[in-house]
């Protein structure tokens, strides 16, 4: 192995930096999944009957479904009876200010570098912080309320805005959709809810930090974002998780509903625990994210930076139903060590003059496997639909894999679909060139990789882009020098 390869190996073979476990008294359901578990969860959350009924229907559906196996990933069979489906930090009392926040929780945030004060003071970002399964604190709520914007935890929305939840929940991702969506619909713990009324432009980035906490706890987040006619919002989701040994299942559902002329930009930085160098531990991240451009000229953009998880199975998609609606997917997926990612998007063109853009950048190091899987479907009525896809793979070293599975289904001859794909290696030439300018190999790899991802980072809100670049550098950083 040449020196460069060795260094790349060390660089990409780094252990997760942000593993720590915080000690918050958990309120936990017994292991396993049956109707009682679901009733327990629902009762814990003081849910109305209709919500419990929905969960139970989803559960019955799930029992009939099979775990999907088509993704290009490998993992031992999950024992769904060996998982804890609910765990919540004990609510002490309602908080009037951040000072009242559980010091443990606060310390956790501090370690993550996302202390709420900082967020509040510096960036004007409203943060709905989720530790494990229950929302701990929401800020800026009042300011948003003045504009009629609802931004709260999902459980709260179930209680306070049942009409909205009933109307929209499952309208984009029905519980019948797939195995994990059904599971989520049955046992979802909490998440965020967001409603932007007609014509309102949300003046700040809405943001949620998720985090897996108690040992052996599955995380079943549920997020619902509704942008009414002409509304605009940009939503950020980011996470890092503590280091632990047993695998953790994460099956989130995110639904976005965009009415006529509405725009939603959803950005994610995902940094769940990826497991150690040998592939031990790590989060299984099986996520269903989908947006519906229901009305004319609606626009939904997904931007994701995926660096974590042992296994990622995730295809943020857009259904382009409204005429002239637009769907975008910008993705950076990094895999290292033994990580496996099968990620991509689906753009379903139904309306006329709809257009979609897919920019995917996969980066694989170590012995990891990184697959892009994308579907572009042009329905028979989707006159003049347009799609442009660019799927690039970058290999660091020679023991990793990159795969591209583009599926194109076109039922309308007026459609124009373009697909470009490249695979490249971080060249020894590029590294040597950097070295010759005094830049170490580790920094060179960071520089080259960040340059490679630029098109995607450009889509992220400013402060998030900086964070993402740091995260990338950290994920690729090792014990070198």
């Amino acid at each position, binding site marked *: 192995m*040449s*020196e*460069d390869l060795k260094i790349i190996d060390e660089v990409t073979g780094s252990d997760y930096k942000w593993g720590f476990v915080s000690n918050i008294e958990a309120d936990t359901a017994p292991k396993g999944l049956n109707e009682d578990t679901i009733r327990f969860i629902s009762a814990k959350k003081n849910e109305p009957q209709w919500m419990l009924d929905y969960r139970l229907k989803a559960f019955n559906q799930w029992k009939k479904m099979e775990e999907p196996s088509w993704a290009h990933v490998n993992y031992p069979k999950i024992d769904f009876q060996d998982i804890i489906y609910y765990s919540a930090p004990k609510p002490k009392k309602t908080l009037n200010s951040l000072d009242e926040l559980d010091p443990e929780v606060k310390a956790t945030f501090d370690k993550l570098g996302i202390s709420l004060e900082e967020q509040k003071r510096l960036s004007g970002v409203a943060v709905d912080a989720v530790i494990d399964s229950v929302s701990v604190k929401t800020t800026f709520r009042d300011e948003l309320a003045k504009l009629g914007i609802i931004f709260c935890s999902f459980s709260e929305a179930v209680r306070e805005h049942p009409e909205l939840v009933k109307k929209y929940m499952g309208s984009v991702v029905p519980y019948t959709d797939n195995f994990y969506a059904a599971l989520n619909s049955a046992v979802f713990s909490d998440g965020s809810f967001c409603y932007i009324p007609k014509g309102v432009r949300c003046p700040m980035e809405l943001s949620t930090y998720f985090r897996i906490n108690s040992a052996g706890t599955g995380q079943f987040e549920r997020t619902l974002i509704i942008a009414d006619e002409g509304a605009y919002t940009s939503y950020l989701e980011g996470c890092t998780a503590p280091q632990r040994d047993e695998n953790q299942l994460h099956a989130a559902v995110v639904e976005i509903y965009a009415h006529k002329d509405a725009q939603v930009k959803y950005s994610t930085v995902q940094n769940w625990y990826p497991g150690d160098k040998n592939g031990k531990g790590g989060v299984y991240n099986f996520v269903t994210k989908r947006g519906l451009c229901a009305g004319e000229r609606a626009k939904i953009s997904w931007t994701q930076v995926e660096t974590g998880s042992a296994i990622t199975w995730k295809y943020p998609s857009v259904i382009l139903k409204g005429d002239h609606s637009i769907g975008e997917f910008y993705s950076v997926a990094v895999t290292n060590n033994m990580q496996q990612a099968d990620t991509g998007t689906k753009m379903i063109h139904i309306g006329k003059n709809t257009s979609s853009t897919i920019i995917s950048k996969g980066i694989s190091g170590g012995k990891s496997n990184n697959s892009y899987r994308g579907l572009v479907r042009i329905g028979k009525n989707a006159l003049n639909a347009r799609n442009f896809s660019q799927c690039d793979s970058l290999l660091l070293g020679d023991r990793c894999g990159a795969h591209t599975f583009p599926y194109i289904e076109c039922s309308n001859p007026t459609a124009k679909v373009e697909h470009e794909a490249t695979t490249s290696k971080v*060249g*020894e*030439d*590029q590294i*040597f*060139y*950097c*070295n*010759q*300018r*005094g*830049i*170490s*190999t580790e*920094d060179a790899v960071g*520089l*080259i990789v*960040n*340059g*490679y*991802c*630029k*098109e995607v980072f450009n889509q992220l809100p400013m402060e998030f882009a900086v964070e993402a670049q740091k995260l990338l550098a950290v994920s690729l950083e090792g014990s070198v020098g």
Partner: protein
Amino acid sequence: MLSIKNLKANIEDKEILKGLNLEINPGEVHAIMGPNGSGKSTLASVLAGRDEYDVTGGEVVFKGEDILELSPEDRARKGIFLAFQYPIEIPGVSNANFMKTAVNEVRKSKGLAPLDSKEFLKLMREKMQLVQVDKTMTQRSVNEGFSGGEKKRNEIFQMAMLEPELGILDETDSGLDIDALRIVSDGVNALRDGKRSFIVITHYQRLLDYIVPDFVHVLYKGRIVKSGTKELALELEEKGYDWIKEEVEI
């Protein structure tokens, strides 16, 4: 400042440098000429520390220190700069960002504080003038989509930014138009301060009209087979390499 003794180097088990000797004092400009494939770029790469080349013998002492065991970045930080014959593209990384990283790495190795954005911009503006590089070029990705001549000019711009003690120019003149050749040469000459040394690899005497060398060497089959002053370049221009080859083969 640089002393190369009996340097031998292989690539893929093929011996390219076969016992090369060269002494360079501070402030001197040494031109190296020689037929294609004689090992000029190999010498440049070996001096810069490229890992594909196996040094099988000899020594290279730079400022009193044997550098053959040093990593390429350490050599760069100690003041060896290589202007590549074929500069490399780094998509998505702006020239400015690349240079800022490089300049600050070099500063760090010297125990200097990194330049902040303002100081860096000031330095960059100053050096941009030197080789008449414009702003758009510093904002574009490193060498990506640059014309051949722009790439070469960018190399000299980078050299000006990094202020090395030894600049190795590998065919920097090839691909430059007549005006650019003058601009680049003026840039190099501006960096000649009596202490900084240069190795100028070229095929054409014309460059040496602008960058006047103290010595001219002919590299042939991995050895320096003839050395002289700038008149040697004129002679080569006129007669080609055959007479030298003949001398060597005897």
